[in-house]
């Protein structure tokens, strides 16, 4: 991790910035969000394929931003940031996924159908 630069501008963390890479990340993420918005506002697909498609758009846009903007790659200087992110992703998914799963099972077993109340989905 030691580079021994006296001038902070020459630090690899500064020098890794790249207009082309930032522009690429911006264009990919913007086009994916545009596609998702057109599909949802036009309602051209059935709900389930539509949901899968916009989930795919979100996943690809996030990966593009993480790779092109946040410099998460396997280069020597960035490897520990990448390792930390790889460790973080399961925590993020488990926190949301297990909570959602617990409550969906709880609702299924405990929510009585009250007349006038909207149904379970």
């Amino acid at each position, binding site marked *: 991790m030691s580079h021994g630069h006296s001038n902070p501008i020459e630090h690899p*963390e500064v020098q890794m910035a790249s207009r082309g890479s930032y522009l690429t990340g911006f264009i990919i993420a913007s086009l994916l969000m*545009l596609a998702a918005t057109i599909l*949802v*506002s036009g309602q051209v697909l059935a709900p389930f394929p*539509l949901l899968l498609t916009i989930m795919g758009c979100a996943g690809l846009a996030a990966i593009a931003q993480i790779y092109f903007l*946040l410099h998460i790659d396997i280069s020597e200087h960035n490897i520990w940031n990448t390792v930390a992110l790889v460790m*973080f992703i399961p925590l993020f998914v488990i926190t*949301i996924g297990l909570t*959602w799963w617990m409550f969906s099972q709880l609702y299924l077993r405990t929510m009585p159908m009250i007349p006038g109340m909207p149904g379970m989905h």
Partner: protein
Amino acid sequence: MSSSHDKPVDPNQVVLWSDDYEGHDVISTRTFGFWMYILSDGMLFATLFAAYGVLSYSHSYYTGPTPAQFVAPWYTFIQTMALFLSVLAYGFSMASLKTGSKAGVINGIMASMVLGIVFVGLDIHDVLRMISIGVTPEVSGGLSAFYALTQVHAAHIFVGLIWMLVMLYQILRKGFTEDVVGRLISLRMFWQFQAVMWVFIYVFVYLWGYMS
């Protein structure tokens, strides 16, 4: 054993450690530390996404309004573009830092700030519109979760804007010292990470809410 061990070691010539101290790499250490903070911030968003996930069933809204009735996808898409362009402008500002161009860095941060203010302005306008049609956090659990998630993100953007203002002052006052450059890099990661979180909020809260 490998052949390198065959040669006898001369204790007078072997180099066991470096003669001089290469220096503590402050920028790398701080950047990695700040990345740890950003991932913890990601866990904060995970808990809010989980809360929204369990409170976005149709019974969560009871008989009140659901996102399908108050979300405007194209309005929020303009917000998305304002945020992405702001992140791009900050990226360009950091590319100018490579050559030490003070004007380039300051112009980039100011463009980023203006676009960030557009994002927050659109968000406040949207909240006022929803309140005016009776969509307020106390109406239902679903709306509480919706407001908590979207407004915590807006609060991050607000904090980022304050931070940019502070950095503009520090660049003018101190120049590109090790401390200032380190903070500019931390702010870049913070700002870009807000765009990543916004992708999930936009798709899973606004768009999914609108279609269901």
